[in-house]
Structure formats: structure tokens, C-alpha cells
């Protein structure tokens, strides 16, 4: 079975791209399936089912969807094998912009859209940086110039990735993407494989449900903002900037 991880910001077109791409494999008689990871709600599973794609969904609830993803990915792979799938795809919306579901030796796709603004490639960090293939969507509604500017911004963050433009609505470019999916190694298990990026180290009291504000309630990995920086210098707390962590807050 071939396994592909697809990540990308919410509503960037992941589901649309996956459906259009799998269509080409289905036409070839391949059996395909998707596991969708999300936080609280998704109706992507309905869409997949309608398109003849085997589907399972996992809602992370209060957990970060990507932490939830790693804890469950081996089970998903085993499910795919049991179903006799030729290709299994995982879809997750990296909600914290710090996590990345990409696993070494497993084809990693990041879907990002032209409408999200030229700053986005820099902002979304690991899920883009660690991808083998970057798919850019929604090119049909922006100018050629904006597509070129956006692509060059993506290239600045990840110069090694292959870059493809896919239209999630018409499917333009999806055939080309599908050729990369079938060209990957088989995956029999992900047990023992490694994430390309470690998940954020933090588990603070707020992650665990704390709602009260103030140092007294802050425990675990807490990092305080430095408001003394002169303007124009490197700001505190960017997604790539993990810096040293202050552990513990009050009490």
C-alpha cells in the first residue's frame, strides 16, 4: 500500500485536491482510502464517501490534531491494509501552524492556496518546510503575477520541494500530481518511522483546559513575551522561533 500524508491550512483545498487526484487512480482500478483528522467537526468524510473513497475520520477534540494524528497513524495504516487499499491518504489541517504530520520515507504533500496571502508560506513553517511536494491551489482566481509571486515565496521557504499548481474545482493539474503518488515506495507499517519535525515541546496548563488568566495558573512550558525589544528587531515568539523556554510560571 502507498501512503501519502497531506497537510495544509484550513480550507486550502486539501479535500478537493485529494478527490481529484484519487479519481485518476480509481479510473486505473486502484482501491483508495482517506483518513481525515480534524479538531471538532468535519463533513469531508461525506464528500469522500460520495466519490467512492473508503474513509475514516478522527476528531481530536481538545487535543492538537497533529498530536492526535501521530498517536493514531499506525492504526490507520493497519486499517488501510485490512481494507486492501492500494493508496491511503491522510488529510490534516495543521491548526497550530507549528505541527507537521509528515513522516520520513512517506510522501509528504502540503496544500496551500494563492488566496492566503504572500506572508503565509513563511508563517506556516514545518508543514510546508518538510513537504516533498507543494501543491498550490486557487490559481484560477488570481492574476498570473500573484501566482508567480506566491510560488517564489513558497520556494524561499522550501526550495527542495516539487511545486505543482492544481485547480481543486476543475482538477487541472491533478493528473500530474497523481503520477507522483503512484511513484512512491510501499508502506507496510509506520511503526518505528520518525516524524520529520518534532511536535512542539509545550504542554501548558491551557492545553490541559485551564481557562483562568494570570501567572498563578500557568504551569508547564510557558514562555513570556519580551515587550522590551526595540522596534524593528527580531520579534518574540514566531512559529519557527522556539528559542529557550522558561519552564514554570507562578506558584
Amino acid at each position, binding site marked *: 500500500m502507498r501512503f501519502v500524508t497531506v497537510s495544509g491550512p484550513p480550507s486550502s483545498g486539501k479535500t478537493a485536491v485529494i478527490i481529484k487526484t484519487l479519481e485518476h487512480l480509481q479510473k486505473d482500478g486502484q482501491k483508495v482510502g482517506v483518513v481525515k483528522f480534524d479538531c471538532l467537526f468535519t463533513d469531508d468524510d461525506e464528500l469522500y464517501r460520495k466519490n467512492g473513497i473508503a474513509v475514516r475520520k478522527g476528531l481530536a477534540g481538545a487535543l492538537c490534531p497533529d498530536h492526535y494524528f501521530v498517536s493514531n497513524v499506525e492504526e490507520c495504516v493497519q486499517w488501510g491494509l485490512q481494507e486492501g487499499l492500494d493508496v491511503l491518504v491522510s488529510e490534516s489541517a495543521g491548526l497550530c501552524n507549528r505541527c507537521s504530520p509528515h513522516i520520513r520515507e512517506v510522501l509528504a504533500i502540503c496544500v496551500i492556496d*494563492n*488566496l492566503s496571502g*504572500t506572508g503565509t508560506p513563511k508563517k506556516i513553517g514545518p508543514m510546508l518546510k518538510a513537504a516533498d511536494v507543494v501543491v498550490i491551489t486557487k*490559481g*484560477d*482566481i*488570481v*492574476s*498570473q*503575477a*500573484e501566482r*508567480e*509571486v506566491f*510560488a*517564489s*515565496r*513558497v*520556494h524561499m521557504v522550501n526550495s527542495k520541494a*516539487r*511545486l*505543482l*499548481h492544481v485547480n481543486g474545482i*476543475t482538477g*487541472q*493539474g491533478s*493528473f*500530474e500530481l497523481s*503520477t507522483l503518488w503512484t511513484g512512491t515506495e510501499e508502506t507496510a507499517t509506520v511503526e518505528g518511522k520518525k516524524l520529520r519535525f518534532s511536535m512542539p515541546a509545550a504542554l501548558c496548563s491551557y492545553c490541559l483546559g485551564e481557562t483562568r488568566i494570570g501567572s498563578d495558573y500557568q504551569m508547564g512550558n510557558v514562555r513570556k513575551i519580551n515587550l522590551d525589544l526595540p522596534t524593528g528587531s527580531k520579534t518574540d515568539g514566531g512559529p519557527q522561533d522556539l528559542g529557550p523556554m522558561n519552564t514554570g510560571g507562578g506558584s
Partner: protein
Amino acid sequence: MSRQLETLTVETVFARWPFVQQQLADNGLGDIADRPEARLAELLDADQLSDLDGFIGVMEEFLGTNEEKVGEVTITGGRAKDGSPEPVTELTVKVGEVICIVGPTGSGKSRLLADIEWVARGDTPTGRHVTINGQVPDDKWRFSSEYKLVAQLSQNMNFVMDLSVEEFLNLHAESRLATDPQEKIQRIWNWANELAGEPFALDTPVTSLSGGQSRALMIADTAVLSSSPVVLIDEIENAGIDRQQALDILIREEKIVLMATHDPILALMGDRRVIINNGAMQKVIEPSEAERANLKELRALDAKLMSLRHRLRMGERLDRI
């Protein structure tokens, strides 16, 4: 020395190769910038000149400006939807040509354009092969951000960035590492104004341009700044821009223009017309003398319709046309 740097003024050299200024400064020759009018021969010795020439060569290679230009693209026929061989076995399109692609919905027009964009190697449903300048091209045309064979212009494209025309063009020029960006921006702006008919300023926000102005700016920008040698046009709308002039600009900038259209005026403006059916190129025809003559009449009809539209807009009745 191929670039004949010694004969050029400092100003010209800096404008043509902006990276030179930094390079000279790094080599303790920064004060050259104080004499913009002087020729390099007056300021640098032969060794320094040849070093600089070498540096420019390396930079041009890095920036891709020195790459072999795409002069022609050849499509070798594959098979139709029913598996029969494609009637047109070879089609070569050259820089400066306008090719129209016509055929019913579902006939395979988009697939043909996609085969070109993907530089097919017999690995698409049509089995076609595409070569550039007679050679099987590099993978870079498939996957890199800098090298895309095809730029696209279509009806439903908008500007989404909140920038002025000038800032917008600057951003595009920057991302393309364009040499002499100021000249390019001026040229784009002038052309766009000519195309649109209704002038706009460089400090107009791109999002507040009219439909015609946006389309005009997109075409001029693609002609001058896009890296792609092939421009694909999905119907240029009638409203507000001079379509013949739009094609002329693209041709002047050495683009290969492909147009999927059912508009008789556009179709007759092309140098050749590819007829698609059943997933295959059925034939390639050139407009006949009679068609060219009819183009005049069609243009007159078109102008007539435009004026009727205008009158409707002004609240007139169309009792007499």
C-alpha cells in the same frame, strides 16, 4: 568581451545589472557610483573589467537570464480517446505565433493545453510528447517555481493583493529578480493604459481597477515580467480592451500565444487554428483569404454591438439600430 562593458556608462551598467553595484562596493570600488555618467573604461583597468564581466556571467546564469530562450514548442501526436492515432502527427508553434484552439466541450482542448504545460512525455492519457527547441526538456519545467512553460490569463482572474499598481509591479519584478525593474514597470504601465483606453495612475490600488483596466494590466504584466514563454488565453473578454493590441504586445515580447476560444473575431486573428475532436488534433488550418476579409466585417459588427450596448447603458431606446 561580449558585453562591451568598457563602452557602457556606470549608470547603464547599474540599471542593466543591479547586482553590480554591491559587487563593486564589496571590492572597494564603491565610489564608482559617484560618477554615473563616466564610461567603465575610464574607471576600471582591463583586469577589473574582465572580472566584472565574469561575475555578470555567473549571476545571469544563476538568475536564469542567460538560459537558452524557448524559441519553439513541438507537440508530437498521440492517440484519440478511442485509441486511434492522432491525425495531426506533429505541430510546432514558434515564438510570436498566435494559435487558436477550437472544438466542442469535452473534446480535449484543456487536455492539449495541459499536455503542453506538463511537457508530456507519453505519460498522459493522450500519449503525446512535447519538446522544447527540438529537445526533450528538463524536469525543471515540471516542478520548479521559476520555470513554468505556461502562463495563464483568464476571465475570472482578479487581483487580490491590497497594493498600488506600482507596488504590485515592484513586488512581481522583485520576485522575478528582474533587471532594470523601473523601465519594465513603466513599460507595463504605459501599455496597460493604451490597452484599457481609460487611463489609471501608478498609485491606483489594483483592487479598484475596472474590469478592462485589470485585464489590461494583467496582459501587459504577463508580457513583460512573466517567466513563461507560452501564454494561454482563455477568452479575452470583449469589454473595454483592444484585443488585437493585446495580442500584439504579447507577440512583441516574444511569447507563444495559445487561445482557446469560440469567438469568431479572436479565432480569425490567429495565425493558425487547431481543430480538436474526440481527444485529438484533427487538423491545423490557416485562415483563408475569405476569412481574413470577413474579419473586417466581423469587427464592424462588433463595433456596432458595442455602440448598441453603450446606448442601452445611456438609457436610450433601440428602435433604430
